[in-house]
């Protein structure tokens, strides 16, 4: 039996950002910049979400000249349901940094 763990405030913030426009593919660094989360925290979150089948990933088909193709992320169907539930039940007291970096989450 697996115990359901409450997602961390940072994970909730990532889920919230991905839920805003669920069909849109997002870049990892853009999520870092938008949420004020460092890469060292962001990528483990994305990796865990992908491992649990909540996040789908793909490589960019068209890349900028001279630059490697980028990895893209968006929520799966299951991920959207999970995100809606996680954002709705998240404690209102989010970490100051995340809340400040992304005020629109407050209204979600």
């Amino acid at each position, binding site marked *: 039996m697996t115990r359901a763990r409450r997602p961390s405030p940072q994970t909730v913030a990532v889920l919230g950002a991905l839920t805003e426009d669920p069909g849109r593919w997002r870049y990892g*660094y853009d999520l870092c910049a938008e949420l004020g989360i*460092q*890469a*060292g925290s962001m990528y*483990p979150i994305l*990796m865990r979400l992908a491992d649990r089948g909540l996040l789908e990933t793909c490589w960019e088909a068209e890349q900028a000249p001279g630059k490697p193709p*980028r*990895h893209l992320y968006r929520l799966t169907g299951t991920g959207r349901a999970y995100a809606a539930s996680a954002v709705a039940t998240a404690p209102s007291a989010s970490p100051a940094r995340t809340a400040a970096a992304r005020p629109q989450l407050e209204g979600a």
Partner: protein
Amino acid sequence: MPVLVMLGVLTAAGLLLVRGGQADGDLPARIVAAATAWLPARQRDWGHAMAAELAQVHGRAGRWRFAAGALRVALFPPSGRGRRVLAVALAGLLTSAAVTAATAAEIPDLAVSAAVLGLLLGGYATVRASRPHPPCRTVPGVMVAAVALAAVAAAIVSVARIAVAHPAAAADNTHVFAVLFAVALAGYLAVALSSSRGHAGAAQRQAERQAQRLAQRLAQRLAQRLAQRLALWWALAAALASGAIWTIIDLTTPLEPVGITGYLWPVGAAAVLAASVGAAATGSAGAGARAGLLTAVLSAPMHFAADLTALMQAGHYALTSPYDVAAFPHSGYPDVASYLLSDAMAGDVLVGLVVYPVVLFAVALFGASFVRGRSSSVTSMLR
């Protein structure tokens, strides 16, 4: 002359590395590339994703922050093993504290070394425990791990013997040599134990095969694994041969102070060169560099232990150099044996465990690049 040779080798190796760095981007990019290579195979794509994102990050501070994050992910990739990691970390701390306390009670002069070595090895074990799907061990891998452990244990025992017989020789008020000794041995063990692991077990290999859709990539990975095993065999053979010859010479020739000249003895360099050239010729440039590095890592503590053991075998210690004759009365050491052994130990730690392996690794890079260097950069060798 030996010093000039050593400086020349190190300068050339530095130039090679700098050239490799220029070809592959700035330092944050190289850190992310190295971190990517260190991720478990099934998470390697995430490393490539981070490397691709770094290309979009502008500004030195931002790039360094991003590289630090990538390094953190590579060291502690998410594995869902938080409790296990915590347990290993706690066990490491407790073991380290117990070993330090026991050493402080029995051989106080080695307590600092014991504490540093215990903490570093505990940290290494914690990092290993945090990695998902620990890679399997192969036959040469087990042998390399066993030789590395035996060589490090021999080095510790040789120092402990001197510290027990001549406590003044092991006294180190600055703790510089004690820390250097522990850091070097922990580093050797980490390199040897990491290199001795294969990248995957049979089941994981099967899963990887299914996941790999491109036959070319699969073939490349199989070739890499084969090259990795070959590198282990080459390193093992070269290190054992070098260690055996070094020990025989040490124990059968009249005792002489070991200096840089002694450590630049051609057998050590020849063994590393043979391993790197052999592994590069039968595998790849990367395999050659790894084989050379591993040969240096395995043979350095062997040579260290052999030298100190030979010194301990000498029943009579005499001052032969005019400098020592003049310096000894003012040195504060209670006897000539302590004075000479202390000097020899400090020299062995600094030159034998720190400088000598760096020179040998430079030799290994040359050996590997001599065979395959024209087709791959030094940076790619290290991946």
